[in-house]
């Protein structure tokens, strides 16, 4: 029963994505909508991403310093671990989990509200490919802007690690920078961007699907918004594991 429902949703999702990625009626309208979405996602999420990244970097530094206490591992390893933790895992994953809550639920509610208020029917009758017009610009905008947010998150996370460890005397500034520059593998940055691309696609397409297929009623709209976050989060973590297995 559950498997049948799951396959049913998967089929509907794939069909919707097939319709969403078809030729636009008018490219300029889609471009305008994509730019608006980029602004909403990028600028609208910047503050929350910076705050969270700052604390994640700080916590990573403090926790690792605590683990190192009384060991022979050199202190500059704190900088090294903060860098790799933020680049490989924390920046892409935590940022996208947070964005699933902020951007994903917003998208599901926006499209779901349009469905319930007959806006989508109105567009459909005008001759608009609603799946394409409402979903494609959002996904394209997210895939372009979220990797930038993830990169910002990685930098801020390292800054957070510095702030939490250097002024508090856990290690010197020189040691922290030395750690940041040690054992650097550019491949990790590539992996961070792969994760950012995959996660941003997942969180927007799943949220748009939840909104687009919402049933009538305010409770259903709330459910769609919640499902958008929960399913996006699960899929992000699943994809995180799969990417780690494939790319490492």
């Amino acid at each position, binding site marked *: 029963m559950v498997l049948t429902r799951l396959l049913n949703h998967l089929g509907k999702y794939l069909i919707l994505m097939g319709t969403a990625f078809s030729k636009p*009626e*008018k490219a300029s*309208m889609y471009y305008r909508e994509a730019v608006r979405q980029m602004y909403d996602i990028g600028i609208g999420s910047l503050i929350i991403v910076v705050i969270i990244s700052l604390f994640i970097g700080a916590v990573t530094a403090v926790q690792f310093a605590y683990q190192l206490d009384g060991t022979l591992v050199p202190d500059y390893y704190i900088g090294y671990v903060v860098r790799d933790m933020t680049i490989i895992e924390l920046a892409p994953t935590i940022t996208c989990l947070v964005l699933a809550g902020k951007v994903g639920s917003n998208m599901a509610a926006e499209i779901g509200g349009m469905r319930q*208020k*007959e*806006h989508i*029917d*109105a567009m*459909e*009758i*005008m*001759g*608009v*490919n609603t799946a394409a017009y409402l979903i494609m610009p959002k996904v394209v905008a997210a895939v372009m802007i979220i990797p930038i947010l993830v990169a910002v998150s990685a930098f801020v996370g390292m800054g957070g690690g510095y702030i939490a460890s250097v002024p508090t005397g856990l290690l010197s500034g020189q040691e922290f920078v030395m750690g940041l520059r040690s054992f650097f593998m550019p491949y990790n940055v590539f992996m961070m961007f792969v994760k950012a691309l995959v996660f941003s696609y997942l969180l927007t397409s799943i949220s748009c699907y939840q909104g687009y297929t919402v049933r009538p009623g305010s409770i259903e709209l709330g459910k769609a918004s919640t499902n958008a976050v929960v399913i996006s989060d699960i899929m992000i973590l699943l994809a995180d594991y799969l990417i780690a297995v494939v790319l490492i």
Partner: protein
Amino acid sequence: MIKVKGIGKSFHGTRVLQDIHAEFLPGQANLIIGKSGAGKTVLLKLLVGLLTPDAGQIYYDNTDFLGLSKRELRQLRLRVGMLFQGSALFDSMTVEENVRFPLDMFTTMTAREKSDRVNTCLNRVSLDGVNAKYPSELSGGMQKRVGIARAIVLNPAFLFCDEPNSGLDPKTSLVIDELIKDITVENHITTIINTHDMNSVMEVGDNVILLHEGRICWQGHREDIMQSDNEVLQDFIFASPFLQRLRKAALQHKAN
């Protein structure tokens, strides 16, 4: 012209519409009436393609509507306008942006041409000077008029109106009815109105179709309603004792 042949539709084994045959002519206000649950909205949704019938055919000017590909359907829809029950105006857009939306999406008009066309349509529905307002700043009647302006902005050949008077006072309803009727005649549009407003029926109903339990049980001009002895029609139109007395008096007056 829209022609419907043997349309049927069921939901989860419940027959909502069966064997519907009808012709909706251009330049006329074609009204679909009936009690709640009679199948009016389902018929309208079938006609615009938001639902697919289980049986039967629909023809738009001899084009088989159900046989169209998605691309052809979108092309046909450029000739269709629809006024929704709740107006369905995009609430994040101003009145001007709402009416301009189909022009932005489907035409290569310049900004000046679009602006002129929007103003012409808003003027036609007597809504000058509200271009910069948002739908939430307008009354229900004004929202309906913006909905009409948006529906006619691409000069449609077919106009569908789903409960255009719902939630409006009788006087505003009359204004909306007359507006739809005038636009229909002026532009020789095939207009189909789904309503249960009896004032609309008696004022603008050139071709009235009464649905009862999923079937057409009466069809005719508004002037034939008084004389008809179809019980379902009389029960529906003259539902209250007051209206029944009124009808009796009118018939007696005519006989004398």
